[in-house]
């Protein structure tokens, strides 16, 4: 089929689309999963210590080494870690982990309740081997907390296979010359991983299931919000395809797109495989074709040969026209070959379906085909790089090409921003886990855990009981400021005032470039209470918040005084002062400014502290001056 066709025209039932989700959500607990450090993110510039490590993969519990781990470790890399005053020796792998964080376990059990999943009798911490450096230990600690749950969406029921409680990995900061630099701030933040059963049969259903799970998670009130705090992976296969795990889908919309494009990709690969088998396709051994390009005008190839590199080529018998065939929007089978070549350090590949181009001439293409004995029905793929990289890359391409004849390979892929995917690594196997002997098993007690109120139910309640209009009710119920809203309403502040301030007013101020982020919960609570008590007119709230955002050291009361936003306006002050001065007209005419002290006391008494002293004094001086002139 043609990848350019309207993707939504795909008949997912006919394709036999099966998808499952794996959702990773960071928990907003006070401390990390295995130490007493806070779960705060930090700026790399705030790092207090730096150190470097290597990782050496080990035999797993059952004496097997995982494919994915082996592939990772082929690149012997040095990892650099940044430590902060909010991280300790546990994150640095310099101290054994402490006991499992109780709050995280409790939130985990709340999530289990929301997913209708059964909590295990005994939790066993496992070590999941990860040798990309993102864990200082070389493994991620993870435990099966609950299984056999389900969620409802408008498309039907989706089974929840399992719920894992695990530690978040270190955040990748940058690639360094020797390897990768990671920050330890994120390492050890509690994380839940929810795996659904492959019950999803359309992109829209995948999106709906992810949205539902996201809402359930946020209903606990103890999950992190913001970029990177929730990550979605999708497993996709079609009937004639294979299980493909797509990592790191950014948002709900992305999920729909990824599922659609992956179904499309597998379908296209199945078609290609059929054609290849009809053509009796085969892959030859890679050979060097340096001589063909001895005089080349191609910049990449010329530079490679000039610097001691090699040009290696592989003949793909029967592949003509298929290497250039699109399998996802703007990604061809050749792009898949290139992914594998890049994985082994090559910059990319050339193939005859797109040549002559990039400085490679028609004559060179002819010579190339001759050199590898390629005919009209064949394709040739080239890699130009240093000898070692070129060899590994061309072999990876040959292996991937052989797989193309069979069909769709099982693999782990990464989500691209445009909704397509790229090859990452082989699927991880079960062998990568062994018991974490540093942490004893835990027997959780779910009987004490209450099921949190769903945010959707909460929104309904805000509308019914607090009289908010439904839009505002939903907005505040799903908002990160929901707990703040609850607490001010508890203290008697009018719900509509509180909700509209916390949602609409703050949003408007942000759009107006006010530094809303500088406002603390205390600022917001105090300000709302001042308005609610009638100390500040409702119209003054906007100015009050602007003022606090500009000068966050102020308290709300101090800001009101400073800006004279109080219940008594300047006009009212002048009116009261004028009354006092007129009452004492004789004294003022006689003593002039000497009457100030006596009258000041009287004015303040009349205004009962509702006005700023400096303001009163200034107005009083003006009024005395006016009369004594």
């Amino acid at each position, binding site marked *: 089929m043609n990848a350019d066709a309207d993707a939504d025209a795909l008949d997912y039932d006919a394709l036999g689309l099966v998808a499952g989700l794996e959702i990773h959500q960071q928990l907003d607990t006070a401390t990390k999963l295995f130490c007493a450090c806070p779960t705060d993110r930090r700026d790399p510039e705030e790092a207090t210590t730096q150190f470097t*490590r290597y990782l*050496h993969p080990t035999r797993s*519990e059952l004496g097997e080494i995982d494919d994915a781990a082996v592939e990772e470790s082929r690149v012997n890399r040095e990892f650099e870690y940044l430590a902060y005053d909010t991280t300790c020796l546990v994150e640095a*792998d310099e101290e054994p982990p402490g006991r499992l964080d109780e709050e995280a376990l409790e939130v985990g059990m709340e999530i289990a309740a929301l997913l209708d999943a059964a909590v295990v009798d005994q*939790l066993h911490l496992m070590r999941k081997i990860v040798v990309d450096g993102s864990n200082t230990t*070389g*493994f991620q600690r993870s435990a099966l907390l609950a299984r056999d749950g389900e969620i409802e969406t408008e498309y039907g029921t989706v089974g929840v296979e*399992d719920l894992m409680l695990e530690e978040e990995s270190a955040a990748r900061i940058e690639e360094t010359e020797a390897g990768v630099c990671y920050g330890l701030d994120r390492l050890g933040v509690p994380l839940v991983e929810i795996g659904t059963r492959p019950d999803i049969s359309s992109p829209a259903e995948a999106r709906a299931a992810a949205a539902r799970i996201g809402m359930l998670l946020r209903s606990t009130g103890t999950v992190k919000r913001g970029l990177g705090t929730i990550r979605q992976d999708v497993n996709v296969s079609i009937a004639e395809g294979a299980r493909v795990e797509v990592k790191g889908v950014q948002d709900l919309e992305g999920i729909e797109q990824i599922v659609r494009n992956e179904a499309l990709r597998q379908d296209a690969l199945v078609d290609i495989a059929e054609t290849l088998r009809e053509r009796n396709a085969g892959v030859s051994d890679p050979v060097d074709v340096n001589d063909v390009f001895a005089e080349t005008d191609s910049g990449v190839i010329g530079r490679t040969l000039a610097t001691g590199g090699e040009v290696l080529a592989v003949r793909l018998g029967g592949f003509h026209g298929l290497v250039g065939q699109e399998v996802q929007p703007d990604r061809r089978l050749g792009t898949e070959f290139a992914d594998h070549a890049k994985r082994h350090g090559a910059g990319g590949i050339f193939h005859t379906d797109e040549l002559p181009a990039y400085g490679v001439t028609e004559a060179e293409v002819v010579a190339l085909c001759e050199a590898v004995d390629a005919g009209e029905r064949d394709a040739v793929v080239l890699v130009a790089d240093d000898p070692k990289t070129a060899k590994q890359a061309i072999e990876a391409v040959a292996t991937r090409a052989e797989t193309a004849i069979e069909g769709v390979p099982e693999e782990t892929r990464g989500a691209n921003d445009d909704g397509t995917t790229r090859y990452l690594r082989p699927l991880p196997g079960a062998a990568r886990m062994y018991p974490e002997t540093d942490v004893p098993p835990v027997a959780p007690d779910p009987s004490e855990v209450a099921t949190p109120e769903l945010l959707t139910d909460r929104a309904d309640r805000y509308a019914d009981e607090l009289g908010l209009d439904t839009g505002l009710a939903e907005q505040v119920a799903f908002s990160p400021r929901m707990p703040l809203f609850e607490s001010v309403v508890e203290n008697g502040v009018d719900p509509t005032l509180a909700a509209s301030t916390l949602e609409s007013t703050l949003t408007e101020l942000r759009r107006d470039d006010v530094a809303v982020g500088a406002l603390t919960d205390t600022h917001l609570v105090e300000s709302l209470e001042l308005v609610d008590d009638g100390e500040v007119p409702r119209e003054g709230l906007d100015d009050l918040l602007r003022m606090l955002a500009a000068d966050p050291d102020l308290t709300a009361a101090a800001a009101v005084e400073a800006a004279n936003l109080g219940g008594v306006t300047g006009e009212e002050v002048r009116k009261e002062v004028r009354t006092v001065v007129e009452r004492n007209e004789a004294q003022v005419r006689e003593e002039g400014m000497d009457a100030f002290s006596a009258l000041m006391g009287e004015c303040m008494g009349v205004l009962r502290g509702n006005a700023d002293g400096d303001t009163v004094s200034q107005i009083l001086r003006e009024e005395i001056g006016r009369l004594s002139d």
Partner: protein
Amino acid sequence: MNPGDRVRVDHPDGHEEGTLMPSTTADHLVVKLAGGYNVGVARADADVEVVERAAREVDATEAPEEGAATSVEFDDDLPTVTLVSTGGTIASTVDYRTGAVTARFDAEDVLRAVPELAGRANYRGRVVANILSENMKPAVWQTLAETVYEEVAGGADGIVVMHGTDTMAHSATAMSLMLDVPVPIVFTGSQRSADRPSSDNVMNAVCAVEAATADHAETLVCMHAGLSDDSCALHRGTRVRKNHTSRRDAFETVGARPLGSVNYETGAVTFRRDHTPRGDDDPAVHPALETDVALFKFAPGTGVEALNRLAGHAGVVIEGTGLGHVSTELIPRVEELVESGTVVAMTSQCLEGRVCDRVYDTGRDLLDAGVVEAGDTLPSAAYVKLMWVLANADDPRTAMQRDLANELQARSVPWT
């Protein structure tokens, strides 16, 4: 039903199918599920059915036989290093029965576990013991010394002792005293267990082999110099102390900077101070020990009855306060102890600095009571030394006040 069996477990919340694990207890069955996770199922409400017997091998490698010798291919151009294993975390794997980490590797396994050792030396393997270092005993020091002696006499160009870290310093002190060999003896181990990809065992073992093939004849401890995997520090066995429970760089030289270091990347061994060069003298071993020695740590409130329990010992090392003190009330008992024939040596719990009992009255009284000052000898080193001098020196009291193996520094120069 045995570990390794494929089982189906029915329980009130559903059922699990997987491999029965050896960590199963009386209360919980532990099942490894298809995804690799282990899960504990309460036995009380569970119904177990064996689907397939011995479906998977879950037992670890058999423990090596003690005393078993192993060897690998020989390269004439390389020096020969004997790897002596005593157990400990550098050569260990998970014990499923206890869930703890125990030693169950021989020297050949170490080579398999640390492939980076290949090409740096020819290796011989000796297993002296297979114990955690907290279970180390003076009798094992004696076997270890005899083994090292045999290996050196048999042509080894250097010795690497794989040792648990807890009592590594004690064993290194014992070897410093018992052995007189013209080649390096290098102790190493790991602070983070070998069953994790981040273990320090690889770098420590590689650096120890480099140190064992370098030009010196010192007895050293070779462990991480800092948090990073960049270099190992070389500490004299008699001056080293484990100063942290878990850090990679737990080992520190007390009273001086480390004697040298090994660069992990280049393998270069450098020394900061004078050291004994390699020689070609015949090796000698003096393994005799008087093990009837006690280490006594004084603290505020320690009563005379604590000292009474030491009566009859051949030797007592006191870890006193400050310059080397115990409370005035204990001094008459110390005197009785000395008079009864016990050699009593004074060290300081300050660790840094030397004892000096001439400064205060209490100290002078202790000297009058017959206590000998061990200078700046570390308490742990003095403990091992007293065992050795009681069995080997003509005058143990004098020997405790003299330097025998760099355990007692003549000058206090911590900046060197």
